[in-house]
């Protein structure tokens, strides 16, 4: 088990980034780490960019935010948002990103262009040692609810960490509504099977 891990979760307001980072913090605490998290939200829940830092440390976390160049895993719910935060990654880090694109208003207003698939791919490859990308939105829609998209990504993340499956299930069950528990666990399992 690593002594300390820094995560950064990013996405678009409404995608559930904050909920998933809550779950990740809870997992850290249950696994014996000190855990802190910090959200950038405010009005950003209305479709703006959202980011959530999560830090685990066996010896105690000071600041709830990671500094530039110190994040171990970047989890992105939307490719443009993942791109926006790569500078937080340390050398040799991991990116897990959804590939489903959501055009921001400056793009639909014709002011700027959305990055091309090639630009996105090149950016990820040059920023991280390990890059895992797939259409998590499509998987979530096929499971029956687009809202579980983030939990699919969390499932993939869980495979990279040496933490008991039961702890993840316990944390997910604490944060999602009881009636949505099953579909969330299914989404989590689906994410685990992708790597």
């Amino acid at each position: 088990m690593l002594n300390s891990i820094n995560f950064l979760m990013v996405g678009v307001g409404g995608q559930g980034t904050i909920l998933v980072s809550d779950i990740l913090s809870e997992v850290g605490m249950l696994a014996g780490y000190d855990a802190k998290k910090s959200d950038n939200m405010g009005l950003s829940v209305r479709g703006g960019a959202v980011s959530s830092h999560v830090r685990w440390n066996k010896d105690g976390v000071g600041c709830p935010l990671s500094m530039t160049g110190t994040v171990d895993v970047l989890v992105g719910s939307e490719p443009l948002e993942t791109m926006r935060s790569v500078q937080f990654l340390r050398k040799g880090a991991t990116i897990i990103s959804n590939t489903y694109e959501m055009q921001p208003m400056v793009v639909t207003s014709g002011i700027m262009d959305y990055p091309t698939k090639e630009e996105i791919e090149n950016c990820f490859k040059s920023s991280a040692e390990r890059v895992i990308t797939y259409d998590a939105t499509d998987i979530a829609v096929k499971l029956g609810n687009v809202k579980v998209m983030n939990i699919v990504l969390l499932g993939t993340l869980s495979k990279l960490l040496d933490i008991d499956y039961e702890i993840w299930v316990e944390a997910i069950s604490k944060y999602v509504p009881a009636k949505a528990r099953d579909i969330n666990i299914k989404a989590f399992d689906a994410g685990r099977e992708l790597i």
Partner: protein
Amino acid sequence: MKELLSGNEAIARGAYEAGVQVVTGYPGTPSSEIIKTMASKYGNEVYVEWSTNEKVAMDAAAGAAYAGKRAMVTTKQVGMNVLMDSLLYTVYTGAEAGLVLVTADDPGLFSSQNEQDNRWYSRLAKIPTFEPADSMEAKEFMKKAFELSEMFDIPCLLHSVMRISHCKSVVEIGERVENPKVQEKLPRNLPKYNCTAMYARVMHAKIEEKIKKISEFAETYDINRVEMRDTKMGIICTGIMYAYIKDVFPEASVLKLGMSYPLPTNMIKDFASKVDKLYVIEELDPVIEEQVRAMGVDCVGKEIFPPCYELLPDRLYDICIEKGILTEDPRSMDVKPVEGLPGRNPVLCAGCPHRSTYFVLKKHDIACTGDIGCYNLGAQPPFEAQHTMGCMGASIGQLHGLSIAGLPEKAVCTIGDGTFWHSGLPALANMVHNNGKGVVILMDNANTAMTGHQDNPATNYRVLRNVPATKIDMENLCRAMGVGLVKTVNAFDVNEVEAGLKECMDYDGVSVLITKGECVQFNKWSSTPYTVDSAKCIACQTCLKAGCPAIMISEEENPKTHKKKCRIDPTQCNGCGICSQVCPVKAIQVKED
């Protein structure tokens, strides 16, 4: 037992453990979750309400504390401006039980119209102020604030910031201690509770004495502590800055003040004498720094650490490396940020009832003074149709001012139902009474939506959605206030909004147009998504002018104009149909499977 709590959840827990009995407040980011937690977790034991504004909340809490109940008020930083009148007299009177005010400030302006440092108010009002550094301290300091409040018979302030309120960390849960006080009557103690000038004159002298005593108490108070390490650099800090400083200056000696007002003078002088160079590092204004200098202690502060925005660890490193205060930068800079990416600002949600109003205002280029709420997103592209925004309730007063100024163009204002109750009412009364002219667009989305769907006097629930409340009808209220034309329209019908607006604009006097439509996030309603029939779409992009995040630019283009056609993201569309109403060729329809 350990729990992972946000600062706001911890503040609520701390108040609960301290035996709080009455909690009032007005919602505002980043403070809103304190009352939400209070109501949902401890509502069976504690009276909780969303008051109509912060001043009303402060007076209600004061009344409860006069009656012997432990009371708490919550506000965001700008709400302190609204309640100051009430806070100042409360500091003079004290109470029969603990009274604690919580302000959650917003350095970095994540969701505020200004970046004020509320610690100035501590000095103005002479209110002892606590500044926690994480959730555990937030909980413990709430208990200490209640203790100190009762010990010295003075209200106390807990000063949080967004990075405390919205961060989560591990908290050790404690037990609730009940208030032993049982009181039958309001004390008939005029010299204590009636701030008429002859009594207030005496009260002022007493408060100066109290603050002197609390300052002496602070010298040995365990929440002010010194951590001696290397003595080359000594740092005075409070609150969240302590967490940042521990990461950035692990070698430095630190005086961590748990209470930022009043300051422990001897402790500060003693710490200063033990270090080579003294730094006061605080976000926003030099509130402590100026007091330290006034003690005759030399220090480094705002000349290095700027007064705008947050002082996050990254920024502290940048500043300290540039100024030579630190020589080594431990951050890896291997991965460069990607320049020139399209930004992503907040937008009105897909299915938002405000969309039709801003579409129509933009179409006719109508001058519009605005207010505080989600609808300020009407100032964003593609609308840019809410031309001013100042503070809660300002839109109606500004509209009145425009009409007094006698501009040839007719103007409107946009104000939501929550804001209307907060401070719009006196402004509307003023406008009617003074024979003003203009259209007040009252955007009724059924609750105080932006901050989390809190109740207001026009909702039939209070605090929690299953608790019934007395509802006041806004249409009748406006009529009773003498508004000459009151018109209610369906916010999801663009033509109805446009026709209603025209009728109101034609009226010579004060009119109110109520655009009624429930916030899409309230019951998370959504119906079958709309789709664009690309065979019919002429790529005119009129639908994009509705500014809906679910409408995307497609790869397909009109072969004649080479303009791109549009498509609708089915995962985002809530099926409100506004885009379908504005499409000139009826290319947007619900696709039946």
